[in-house]
């Protein structure tokens, strides 16, 4: 079992396959904490359980997904959750872009890198952790970032959460918390036990009280990044 620090939590991880071995070490910690917040060990059984829902995946991919899903389920108890989104950091703030797979989340945040150059960077390209802390709402990089290993071990305050869809014209508008809940819930990993579902809903409401949410229609022109930033800054 190796100790990691992920999203500000001490996490003991035990794994045996390649993907975890490549992506987890960045988050290893040499601290000696009194309490380890979360412990996850993968086993052949847990790998098989993932494969039941996704038969085409390798052992390594199943393990990676299993450990990630377990972490995000536990995260709920530490005032957080995972939002399926690409998170970009610019001028000290994080902007999260969420949508169904294939809509163009990563494509859009890549446009930010083009528009703002070295001042912008990707925090996590697919599954950032969100946590409610004493002094605000933060996004964290994690080892689980989708197809590409694009994530940074950093903590950044969230300035806005944006749901994007494709459009010919680049347009952003603020939307109410109430309006966005069903859409947002679709992009959040949801635990299956009642107590954690209730905690997740509570966390979500807190985040929606404190972080503005937007809807962005965007194309693949670099202008889309400027429109999004100007609407959310």
């Amino acid at each position: 079992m190796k100790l990691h620090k992920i999203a500000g939590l001490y996490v003991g991880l035990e794994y045996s396959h390649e993907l975890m071995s490549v992506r987890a070490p960045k988050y290893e910690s040499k601290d000696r904490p009194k309490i380890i917040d979360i412990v996850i060990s993968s086993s052949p059984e847990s790998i098989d359980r993932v494969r039941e829902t996704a038969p085409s995946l390798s052992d390594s991919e199943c393990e990676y997904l299993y450990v990630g899903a377990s972490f995000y389920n536990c995260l709920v108890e530490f005032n957080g959750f995972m939002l399926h989104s690409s998170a970009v950091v610019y001028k000290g703030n994080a902007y999260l872009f969420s949508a169904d797979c294939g809509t163009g989340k990563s494509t859009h945040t890549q446009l930010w890198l083009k528009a703002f150059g070295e001042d912008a960077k990707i925090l996590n390209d697919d599954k950032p952790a969100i946590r409610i802390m004493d002094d605000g709402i933060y996004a964290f990089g994690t080892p689980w970032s989708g197809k590409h290993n694009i994530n940074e071990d950093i903590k950044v305050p969230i300035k806005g959460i944006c749901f994007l869809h494709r459009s010919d014209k680049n347009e952003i508008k603020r939307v109410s918390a109430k309006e966005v809940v069903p859409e947002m819930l679709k992009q959040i990993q949801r635990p299956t036990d009642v107590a954690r579902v209730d905690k997740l809903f509570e966390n979500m409401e807190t985040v929606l009280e404190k972080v503005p949410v937007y809807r962005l229609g965007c194309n693949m022109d670099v202008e889309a990044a400027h429109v999004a930033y100007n609407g959310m800054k």
Partner: protein
Amino acid sequence: MRVKSGYILREVAGNYIVVAVGEEAVDFNGLITTNETGAFLWEKLSNNISEQELIDAMLQEYEVDEKIAAEDISLFIRKLEDAELLINE
């Protein structure tokens, strides 16, 4: 009739949301959104109740014409049946 166990109704930031929990969540990880009236009917359907009793309950709670209430409830029940969320016992 009543709704299957394993589903919970919650209000989240002004939305009424039904999600599956426990074993049911393995087969159903989607979510159902409904309005205040739907939430009222869902709560009533957590215990065994007949269609007529549902109509009576709605007429007591809301100022609504009986014919319209009956139509709405029939539609709501059909939606739940289509989603395989109701059991008749």
